[in-house]
């Protein structure tokens, strides 16, 4: 699975894209975030306020209770500020 990080989420994790093998039992965005936070202090800091981090599954906005299903690409980012 490809994970992408944008804006300050990218700055805090220190990476923009990575390919990961998820451990079994991770079914939702919220569970994925909880696992990511265990990977190191930079991930813990990036997701310290998980409620302000937005997620997309295969380039569609989703809530944190969304099921990962067979997702190929998951992105994490702050609320958008374009326009």
């Amino acid at each position, binding site marked *: 699975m490809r994970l*992408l990080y*944008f*804006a*300050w989420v990218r700055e805090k994790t220190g990476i923009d894209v990575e390919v990961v093998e998820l451990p079994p039992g991770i079914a939702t965005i919220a569970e994925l975030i909880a696992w990511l936070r265990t990977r190191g202090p930079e991930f813990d800091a990036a997701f310290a306020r998980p409620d302000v981090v937005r997620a*997309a599954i295969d*380039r*569609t*906005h*989703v*809530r944190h209770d969304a099921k990962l299903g067979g997702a190929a690409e998951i*992105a994490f*980012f*702050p*609320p*958008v*500020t*374009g*326009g």
Partner: protein
Amino acid sequence: MIRVQQEDFDIGAEIAKVKAGRTDIGAIVSFTGTVRDCGGAVTQMTLEHYPGMTETELEHIETEAKSRWPLQASLIVHRTGTLRPGDNIVLVITASEHRQAAFEAAKFLMDYLKTSAPFWKRESGPEGDRWVEASSRDESAHGRWEPPKNAAE
């Protein structure tokens, strides 16, 4: 039509392209968003986006506008990369037979773009750099519109 680009755009030229060869349009509305210097606090703005999802979201927003108003043409152009105060950021053009649809659709496009298109602004100035925070006014402007059918949120 939607475009995401680093280059500047020419508002007059874009309106001319929308009108070219057509005599059925009665109203054209354009909105341009530009970089503010916020009283000298901002000397540069960098726009990051999510290539692929950005285009998908903008097309989705445009399709939604066309399902709500009788638009004859529409255009969204959004810039990315490094911009300076006074530079253009975003252009929305809507064309319809009558002004009401064009005005409302242009506002709708901007309200939805502001809360769903994956762009992020980073401002630089004498005090350093900061990521622009999402505005609750943008959320409430979005919330004034009826949600689309099949809305995921």
